[in-house]
């Protein structure tokens, strides 16, 4: 736990830097912002679904692995006896702080509640890779994604289950040391992209970040061929006493769907997020012109890891 806090503190600095670098004379471009962050949800109502001893922390898209300020996010894999949970540690931590803040300021109007508290990565706004949680159930051989969508899109918050994805790994003979562990290279094709993973036989756990896993050792580093997303281990905790693996009760209310449908929602949110912004401000307050170059410039295409 202490280690995480330690990582946090350095990340906390990045907030300072972000503020410091914001030059007030420069106007905010649509293009500077991703879809806004989803509103926080209560972290008090959690169900204990399993318990485990190992937590693994991954940096998402670090440009300098020794500098948490350069991470897009800090993510955590909690490995239980039959379940594992993969989630954004920063998002979860912010949710906890906001929950606590709301408890202390019960009379404050909803629109005054802070969106984000505590440390965060350099990535701003919404991304499915920050706001989805992935539970791998090894007894049912099933993976469930719980996807949280920004602001008023939260009514489309959805879940789906699929058979536990099996990547057809080809092990190579290259080695690399990641987080002090000797790792071996493995590659695979998975849903339209080519991945490289580095796994360690010293941690015989067939798991990894995001949907990846199935190797005889834990995946400590993984990335796709185009390096759109990279996950790299920055911390491993071996708890002497078991910690509970928890699941937010709100997930039970999430709309049941399938992977393809959710894919469409995500695409719409990503590509048409001004609609989302307008929804957030109640509409009308911000007028936009679809021919406005700023608006067109802003239209970030949806480039997910899963192409099929």
């Amino acid at each position, binding site marked *: 736990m202490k280690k995480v806090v*330690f990582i946090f503190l*350095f990340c906390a600095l990045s907030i300072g830097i972000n503020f410091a670098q914001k030059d007030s004379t420069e106007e905010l471009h649509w293009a500077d912002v991703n879809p806004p962050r989803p509103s926080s949800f209560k972290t008090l109502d959690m169900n204990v679904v399993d318990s485990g001893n190992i937590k693994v922390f991954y940096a998402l898209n670090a440009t300098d692995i020794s500098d948490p300020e350069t991470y897009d996010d800090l993510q955590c894999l909690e490995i239980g006896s039959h379940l594992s949970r993969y989630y954004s540690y920063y998002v979860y931590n912010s949710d906890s702080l906001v929950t606590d803040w709301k408890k202390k300021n019960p009379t404050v109007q909803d629109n005054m509640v802070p969106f984000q508290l505590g440390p965060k990565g350099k990535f701003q706004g919404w991304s499915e890779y920050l706001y989805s949680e992935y539970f791998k159930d090894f007894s049912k051989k099933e993976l469930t994604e719980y996807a949280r969508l920004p602001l008023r899109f939260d009514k489309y918050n959805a879940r789906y289950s699929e058979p536990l994805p099996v990547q057809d790994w080809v092990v190579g003979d290259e080695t690399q040391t990641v987080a002090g562990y000797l790792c071996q290279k493995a590659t695979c094709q998975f849903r339209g992209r080519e991945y490289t993973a580095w796994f360690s*036989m010293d*941690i015989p756990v067939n798991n990894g970040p995001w949907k990846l896993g199935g190797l*005889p050792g834990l995946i400590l580093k993984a990335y796709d061929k185009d390096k759109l997303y990279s996950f790299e281990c920055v911390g*491993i905790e071996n708890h002497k006493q078991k910690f509970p693996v928890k699941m937010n009760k709100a997930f039970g209310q999430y709309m049941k769907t399938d992977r393809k449908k959710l894919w469409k929602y995500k695409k719409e949110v990503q590509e048409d997020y001004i609609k989302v912004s307008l929804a957030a401000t109640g509409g009308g307050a911000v007028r936009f012109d679809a021919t406005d170059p700023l608006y067109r410039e802003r239209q970030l295409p949806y480039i997910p890891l899963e192409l099929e």
Partner: protein
Amino acid sequence: MKQVFLCVFSLLVPLLAYTQTTLTGTVKNKQGEPLVVSVTVQAKGSNTIAGFTTSDKEGKYSLTYKGTADSLVVTASGVSVGKHSRVVPNRSGQVNFSIEEKAMELKEVTVTAAPIRRTGDTLNYSVRAYTGQNDRTIEDVLKKMPGINVDGSGTISYNQKPINKFYIENLDLLKGRYGIATKNIEAKDVSTVQVLENHQPIKALADKILSDAAAINLKLTESAKGKLIMSALAGAGYEPAMWSAELTAMYFAAGKQNMTTYKGNNAGKDLSSEISMHRGYDYDYVSPGDISMLSIAAPSTPPVGKNRYVNNISNSVTGNQLFKLGKDMEMTLSAVYYNDRVEKEGYSLSEQFLPGDSSVRIEEDIKSLTKTNNLETSFKLNSNAEEKFFNNSLNIKGSWNNDRGTGITRSNVGDMNETLSQYLSSPAFSVDNSLDFIKNIGKKSYKIFFSMAYSHSPHSLTVSPVNYFGNNSLASLEQSVVSNNFSSSVRTSYGLKVKKVNMDYGLWGSVDLKGLDTELTGTDTLGVFISAADSLKNDLWYNTYQIGVNQNYTYNSNGKFKASLAIPIVNHTLTVNDRIPDKVTKYNRWIINPSLKVSYDLTRELAVAAGGNFRKNYGNMNDAYTGYIMHSYRSLLRNTIDHLFESRSGGANASLQYRDAFRELFLNIGANYGKSWSNLLYGFDYNGIMQVKTTIDQPTQSENYGFNFSGSKGFGFWKTTLNMSGGYHEGWGEQLIQNEILTYRSEGYNAGASINTTPSAFINLSYSFGWSRSRSFSEELSTRFPPIRSQNHTAGLWLNPTKSFGINLSGDYRYNSAVNNRNTTFLDAKVRYKNKQTEWELECNNLFNVRQYVSASYTDLSTYYYRYNLRQRSFLLSVKFKLK
């Protein structure tokens, strides 16, 4: 090589395809239950696997290997079962595992981050990076952080300047008594120490009034927040019979903070430094009243740790509570009680050379007992918002102190050999309130400050018998000094910002009324009371009325170039109402005290700063009373000139600072110069052994200058911190002795260095040395003594055979060239053992059993020698345990 291998390999592949090895088998535990685990195969001697699979629910697996290795390693592994390998020949067949389940121990990993990081004006020190196994409190760790310095009294400096604020989680709970935090908060509960450079505590004045001091903020670990932390310590020892006790409780939450401590001991441990206010701190109370005019002659204390010489019974209780009432509003309550009983014993010999080859030699062999009782309470309400600042601070203090000294005084004057007793009673009471209000409207700030203070201190000093003063033979002399002080001030100010210049104007007025009522009475040997003659009495009101205009101009160019100029103009009216001769004197003077500060950041790391000031001063009540006051048993002082004391002084300083947080390198080079002029020259005459103040109407000057440097560097290698410092100073002035004016000069060099290093987890070494060479002499006298050289070396060693066990040895060696017995060496040892809940410590102090400390100093005009009785060799066993 690889390519060749690949070529050969690709040629062989079709062949090898036929030599595929298939391994099958089951994985079961000792009880015969099937296990679902990973099974891998690799060539013997290779560190990479060639194939893998997972055993099924029946524990069955099947693996293929395509390769030419003679032997294969088949491994079944899982976190809960461990790693189990078997070496088999490269042949298809069955390999069954029957394994003993053994959970695997994973090595934990943390991303390695730089120990210090900078964001803007904030430096973040990772506490973990500087914490060693033997560091308990956050002070232990602060001492190791490059750029941060903690002196013996606990004052924290950053780049040689004392800090102006100390926060815990951004809240100022202790209002300057930060020793309570640094000596009690455990290092493991703090995650980051933040240094806030150029810290302006008042948010409404940020970017408006410059500050060159830094503040410290402790960021706690998540696990230390929002819960009650309690610990206790109990200890006993010999010799003499010793005890030590502590009870501390603290609670830090977002809206509430509390620290409550009790400490007590008779083991020589100093408690006062923990609760003292530190210099440089940004206080919000009215400056304390005058120091007592009276004192007893007590043994001089040696420059070694207090625990070596103090015979004490000390108790301290502190309670500090902070409530956050709103976003920016805080209320702080604090109470500090300190009780101390200190015995001292020592011998001193001083000799004052007088013009004309005569001298006064005084030998004193004194035992003293000082009893201290202090109670201070304060109530503060503070609102610190961007646009508005409000602060009200109410302080009430009471103290009941007394000193008793008995001893023998011998002198060459009149062959004196007397046993004397001295008794000083010095109670004091004070109450003060200050109110500060600042409001920003647009770019303008409006400020009002109002304060009131009252203090009352009835002191008295009794000496008996008195056979050494003139031809009198008295049973006792009693000096009483009652002082009453009332002061009040109102300040308003108005600030505005024009481009990059902040202009701050203030109008203020203050009243300071000081009453002094003194009387020196006696009792003769027959017990008859002798009332004071008028020359031995004072009934004086020394009142100062000031009206002034403040002007402050601050220029800030993107934080790189900063300049501030202050030109206060004061009209100073002083009335001295001396009621014994019934004489009222009134003075009116104008004072202009300009000062200038500039700093420029040449690069992100390198900065230059310079400053200068000029000031005028018109003395204080000590220069105004005309009846004799017996300040101590052999000092009888009064002022004989009815002029107003006037002095002027000017000074300048410049410094160059280099601070590179990433390289952990901090350097500071500075120079300073000062000159002062005054219209009166003070001096001392001797009447027997009695020192009598004399004043002549003779303008005098003094001058001094100096250079200093300091540097510190942290190395990742062995967690090493290196500090170095040095300096030179020179000065001259004039002194009046037995009606002759002598010019004295002094000069000195000093240098020091220290290193702290941790070569491995079980050893920590620290070493420091200080060296100085100084002399002072009089131009008019032809004799020259050699310069005094002194050195001290301290070394410490920590050995940690296990994580829970530590042994500490520390040595302290001192050398002083002015004494015959030049060398003093102390050795102490400590053994510490800790487990989850308790920490045991056995301290062995003064293993060489050094019983006396001897020191001396001399100038061409006087010599001084003293000997002090130290505490003997002692052992103290204490246990500290967590209550919560």
